[in-house]
């Protein structure tokens, strides 16, 4: 028996042709994009030889003696992340209340409002929020905290609203049956059910906010990013390398702790 005698659906010529066409179109598309980015838009002459690039890259080898000076800004970054998260938590609960389909007070008006705020917050990069706040409030950690809060309340409100939508209606009905008003139903029927999920998400968001807080300084939002921007401008590349190492270490430790705590919660 030869191969051809077996009717293998995977070797159907039409299907094979279709697959190769899709593959070919994708490959051509990628090649065109690649040519545009790597050949047309890149100034290879300015870049110099590979040896020169390696030489520049070696300037970034961390200057360890700079470490003590980075501790203060790193702590500041951590505080910005923490306060950004605390603010986001406070604001996200009412927004989640608006954006959860089953408990929103006036579905026609408040549901789209809540969802719209969530989409706006989730789809805008923290740098953009920071720019707007910095231009209104001046430099410093305050616009950074506000930018972080605005950025992370979308995720918190979205996950909380989803948890509320998936909450067990049994306890909610039981509390409604006692004649409780909307607020009491929310406090005693909904919140106890979603609380563990909410705490897990807050810790997750805190961990992400450490990462976000570290770049806010690039646009004047305070923290370690400000120091990084200064150091890069003055071409102290070794110090820049040290700062990157410091941030990476802080983020990795933060992520490790957050994972551990969340595992214990769930």
């Amino acid at each position, binding site marked *: 028996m030869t191969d051809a005698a077996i009717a293998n659906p995977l070797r159907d010529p039409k299907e094979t042709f279709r697959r190769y066409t899709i593959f070919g179109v994708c490959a051509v598309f990628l090649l065109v994009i690649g040519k545009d980015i*790597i050949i047309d838009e890149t100034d290879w002459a300015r870049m110099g030889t590979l040896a020169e690039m390696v030489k520049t890259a070696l300037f970034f080898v961390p200057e360890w003696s700079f470490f003590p000076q980075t501790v203060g800004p790193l702590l500041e970054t951590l505080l*910005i992340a923490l306060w950004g998260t605390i603010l986001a938590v406070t604001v996200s609960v009412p927004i989640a209340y608006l954006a959860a389909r089953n408990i929103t007070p006036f579905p026609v008006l408040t549901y789209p409002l809540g969802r719209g705020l969530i989409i706006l917050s989730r789809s805008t990069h923290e*740098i953009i929020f920071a720019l707007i706040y910095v231009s209104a409030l001046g430099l410093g950690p305050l616009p950074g905290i506000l930018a972080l809060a605005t950025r992370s309340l979308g995720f918190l409100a979205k996950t909380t609203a989803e948890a509320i939508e998936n909450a067990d209606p049994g306890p909610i009905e039981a509390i409604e049956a006692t004649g409780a008003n909307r607020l009491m139903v929310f406090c005693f029927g909904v919140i106890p059910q979603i609380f563990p999920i909410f705490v897990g998400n807050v810790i997750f968001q805190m961990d992400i906010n450490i990462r976000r807080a570290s*770049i806010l300084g690039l646009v004047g939002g*305070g923290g370690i990013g400000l120091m990084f921007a200064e150091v890069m401008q003055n071409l102290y590349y070794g110090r820049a390398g040290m700062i990157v190492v410091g941030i990476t270490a802080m983020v990795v430790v933060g992520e490790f702790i957050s994972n551990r705590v969340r595992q214990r919660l769930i």
Partner: protein
Amino acid sequence: MKENVSLAFDSYRSDEMRGGLWKFVGLLIFIAFAFWSIDVLKIPIERVLGMFGRLGTMISERLLPPEMAFAAEDRVVDSIIETIEMSILGAVIGTIITMPLAWFAAWNVTPSRAILYPLARAIIVVTRGMPTLMWAMVLVAIFGFGPFAGMLALVKATIGFAGKLMAEQVEAIDMRRVEAIRATGANELDVLFYGVIPQVWANWVGIIIYNWDAQLRNSTILGFVGAGGMGLYLREQISIIEYQTAMAIIVVIIVMVVLSETASHFLRHRLY
């Protein structure tokens, strides 16, 4: 009997009081911490009070309405196309690098637990921890301005983002199928192609699409540090205090991100 009840009541009351005490102490600690933070961060209190008024004036008078005509200028349209191209290329190249890394970084099927596993894990952890925008600044210093540095920054972001998710998928596979393949005398590569990839492929495709979506979001601001794309015009317009044109770019970014999110959501649900 009566004594028992009163004892129980006493213990209940002391419990409640102790709970209240702890709450009070917690609140005090929180307030002290808040004041300490305000001191460390040097937050100007008098500015916090007038904050919302100033934000309101800023948004209503200087940011709105966005001058959308700016976003239709040729150079801006070119930069938007460049942003999308950069995100696709960075995501694709990053994914190609990430796939073997995810295989190495999965404890259950890694080809070498002593060398490749810790190495791959370290690469994923470090690339995850390093902020993409700073990495882009470093790359711009090495490779010069332009989308090439941005693309490499996105490759880094992809390794960190998709690497962890993909390795998690590999670690969750059904090991019986891997053992069955191993029992035929297959080598590690055969195990990968016939035991691992068929099980994770559907999830991996979902992660790849999701990752592209995330990289598009990243690529919109990479231009801020000169790493190509539309972020450059955002920075330019803000530094010359043309907030309404800057707002136009922000609107374009939001529209792009929402569209890509919808597209990625649609694709992921169609593929499953």
